[in-house]
């Protein structure tokens, strides 16, 4: 049957920020499929100019309400690289644990509040309070663990307060770390229940081959700094991030697009897993879901997030054991203000994030560039939509079904749109 289809999703729900989906099919042929970000731009890179570099992490944390710790860490790493600061080992561990808290917070928020309603056929998590109370309670307990973790390690989940140039400004107290260790152990069964729950959902079967970009792990699953790698075999140093991003602008979107060896790239949990599978501490969970490299189903990003949650919980227990064994006296390094240029690459929940600053001899930011994971995913979402619609139409799916699939596809990337239009 030759179908006509006009799908317009204005301000897609259950994503962070404002984006529209536009699909046009005439006589069974795809005419147009678009992912259009319509978020109002905020101009952080322009606002950073003339600001003391120590204020940059405080300002750029405010690019995103969900991954503010990740932005602060990328910003700090760029500044510390520019000024040649080596931070104490303890501070590195505290920062990584804070980041793990954020990863758990963001992934569980996405899995339960944003993605799960599609699979459970409800509009939001709210009706689930009545119908699936046990699931909501698991979600809230896991999210609470994540928030407590961020509060203990960074002083606050949204817009952290104790991450500073040179290290951290306030050490967590050991009693809190002990309690946190217990709390994580107690939540492992909840994570297992979540795995069981997600095993019952039917992830749409859709493949479009693409290039996955992430940090490259050397000894561990990578989170903060290091080499950049793609599944098409591109390998670059952190400082050469621009070679990985190649930003360009499309008229219909306020967020930029990027590309590398193909017309689009993907970043995020699935990209990290595809590039660093061997370092996963939750390989057994990945195997239970049958996810292994190279997986080219964007919907599996949800599952990759869940695998990462378990990995992060295991790694956090190890980090806590190490921290509890060490004195907390050296938490930041002294430094001198000088001229410099630095890049910070950090794996935030939605993928690899880059901050790049030029700092003058007074310590003021002269020029700044921030490239956000969702920006790097935009082109991939855009081209996935076209392919997904073509396949769905060929399989005889109707408007409402195609619309829901399109929405679910965009959500699977967990886009952080206000972030991408920083």
């Amino acid at each position, binding site marked *: 049957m030759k179908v006509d289809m006009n799908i317009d999703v204005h*301000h897609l*729900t*259950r*994503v*962070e*920020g404002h984006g529209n989906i536009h699909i046009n099919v005439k006589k069974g042929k795809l005419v147009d499929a678009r992912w259009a970000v319509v978020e*109002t*731009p*905020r*101009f952080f*890179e*322009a*606002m950073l*100019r*003339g*600001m*003391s570099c120590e*204020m940059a992490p*405080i*300002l750029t944390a*405010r*690019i*995103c*309400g*969900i991954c*503010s710790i990740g932005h602060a860490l990328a910003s700090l790493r760029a500044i510390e690289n520019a000024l040649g600061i080596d931070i104490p080992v303890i501070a590195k561990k505290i920062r990584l644990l804070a980041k793990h808290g954020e990863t758990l*917070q963001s992934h569980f*928020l996405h899995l339960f*509040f*944003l993605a799960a*309603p599609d699979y459970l056929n409800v*509009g*939001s*998590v*709210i009706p689930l*309070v009545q119908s699936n109370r046990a699931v*909501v309670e698991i979600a*809230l*307990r896991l*999210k*609470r663990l994540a*928030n407590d973790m961020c509060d203990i390690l*960074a*002083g*606050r*989940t*949204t*817009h*952290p*307060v*104790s991450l*500073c140039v040179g290290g951290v*400004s*306030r050490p967590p107290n050991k009693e809190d770390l002990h309690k946190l260790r217990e709390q994580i152990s107690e939540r492992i069964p909840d994570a297992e229940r979540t795995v069981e729950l997600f095993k019952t959902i039917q992830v749409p079967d859709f493949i479009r081959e693409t290039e996955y970009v992430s940090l490259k792990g050397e000894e561990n699953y990578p989170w903060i700094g290091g080499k950049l790698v793609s599944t098409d075999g591109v390998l670059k140093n952190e400082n050469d991030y621009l070679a990985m991003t190649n930003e360009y*602008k499309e*008229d219909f979107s*306020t967020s930029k697009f990027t590309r590398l060896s193909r017309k689009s790239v993907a970043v995020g949990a699935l990209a990290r897993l595809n590039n660093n599978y061997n370092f996963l501490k939750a390989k057994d969970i990945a195997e239970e879901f049958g996810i292994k490299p190279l997986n080219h189903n964007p919907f599996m990003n949800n599952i990759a997030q869940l695998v990462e949650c378990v990995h992060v919980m295991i790694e956090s227990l190890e980090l806590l054991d190490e921290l509890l064994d060490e004195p907390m006296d050296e938490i930041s390094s002294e430094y001198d203000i000088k001229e410099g240029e630095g890049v910070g690459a950090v794996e935030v929940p939605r993928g690899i994030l880059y901050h790049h600053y030029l700092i003058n001899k007074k310590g003021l930011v002269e020029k700044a560039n921030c490239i956000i994971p969702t920006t790097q995913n935009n082109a991939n979402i855009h081209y996935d939509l076209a392919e997904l619609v073509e396949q769905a139409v060929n399989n005889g799916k109707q408007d409402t079904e195609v619309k829901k699939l399109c929405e679910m596809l965009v959500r699977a990337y967990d886009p952080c749109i*206000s*972030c991408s239009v920083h």
Partner: protein
Amino acid sequence: MEYLGIELKKPKVSFFDFTCCEGCQLQIANKEDTLVDFLSLVEVVNFREISSEKKDHYEIAFIEGAISRQDEIERLEKIRKQAKLVVALGTCACYGGVNSLKKRFSVEDVVNEVYGHNPVETLPVKSVKEVVAVDFEIPGCPISKAEFESIILHLVLGTEFRFKKYPVCVECKQNLNHCLLDEGKICLGPITRAGCNAVCINGKLPCYGCRGPAEENNWPSLKQILTEKGFSPEQIDEKTSFFNSLTEVTKNES
């Protein structure tokens, strides 16, 4: 729902976001201990960040974010017509927030810096009350979860909520923090409205005034202290203008 034998209203509430990071809405979704109770106290009809439900009838509209594009002005005016009560949620909505740092440059300059030859539309940043009438303001970057909850309880019970008159400095002293001014930093805790439990200073980040001025504040005196400590006007201004929340006290005296 009943409380002490009194039937409580269950107002229909909506959350809308404009130019911002959506971190304030997230504070509500992140209040795990009481989220379920909160959802029983009000009827959430629009909360795009976490829900696909959309309705045009609501009594209370929470507005997150600053206003920086023509379509945002039109959207906000439409919401104002629908809602009985418009509440500005967070520092961006109340004061413009960090978005206001844009005003140090021309619109052409910031657009060119970020978008180069592919310009996008943008306006000088405004707070919500500069565009429509606002009934209540909840400041904070991000908002305090506990304070937000208390305000909602007051709204549902129909009683007046009062912000603390004293500055963050009082809460900071109660927490037995070492004074960051004494450690040689610029801290605006002495002039900023309390209610955040001095969360930044607890983590040794100085206060930059996101909650706006305390009713009882003495800016000329703080400014004199900062000047005596050797800070330049530029260094002081970088902090006082960070959230655009203190202009009412810092601009009057100079």
